[in-house]
């Protein structure tokens, strides 16, 4: 079974952790994740600038490790990321910003990538809100 997973909430929201646990369980169950798409505040999960308090789950770190280990496609909505100051090297240069807060394995791309993933997947699962 092929899953597309979309995440709409920031790294400190409980729903971000649920998305990660679901994704891990999907792969452990022998299923495939065609794409992880990070939209709206979900882009903060991909930010290198997030510093998580020591006694809390470090979701940006856990997502990065998971995506690297499983060689997944982690796509961050470019419009949502730019407006929240989450920029990769290319965008920082384009908009003359000092801070670069997004790097591989994350990829900035458009909403079309979510649409494309949904076409390819058997199920779209969205996480967000509380």
């Amino acid at each position, binding site marked *: 079974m092929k899953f597309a997973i979309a995440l709409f909430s920031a790294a400190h929201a409980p729903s971000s952790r649920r998305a990660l646990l679901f994704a891990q369980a999907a792969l452990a169950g022998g299923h495939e994740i065609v794409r992880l798409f990070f939209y709206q505040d979900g882009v903060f999960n991909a930010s290198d600038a997030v510093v998580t308090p020591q006694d809390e789950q470090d979701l940006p770190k856990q997502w990065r490790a998971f995506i690297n280990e499983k060689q997944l496609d982690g796509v961050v909505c470019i419009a949502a990321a730019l407006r929240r100051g989450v920029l990769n090297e290319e965008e920082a240069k384009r908009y003359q910003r000092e801070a670069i807060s997004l790097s591989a394995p994350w990829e900035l791309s458009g909403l079309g990538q979510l649409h494309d993933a949904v076409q390819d997947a058997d*199920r779209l699962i969205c996480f967000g*809100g509380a």
Partner: protein
Amino acid sequence: MSTLHVLSHSPYGDDRLSSCLRLLGSADAVLLSGDAVYALQPDTVPFSTLQERAIRLFVLIEDAQARAIEIPDWAKAIDYPAFVELSIHHAKVNSWL
């Protein structure tokens, strides 16, 4: 074609649960996660509403345990692997974001 409805907000903060129940199809199921598990707090309106509707109700067990919510025998506690299987069992998954 059935839908799994995933709720994560407290039933005391908004109308998601009642809106969801209003449009729930006969083959649909509801999964309570996060603060939505507070709907299973005994002696409350959400609790009796769910009990009376006799819907197919699932609860993410770690979210219930984290909030000391006991799961009644008319609901089923599930873990993440079961959540994945539940999402496959239904044609669509609708998250009430």
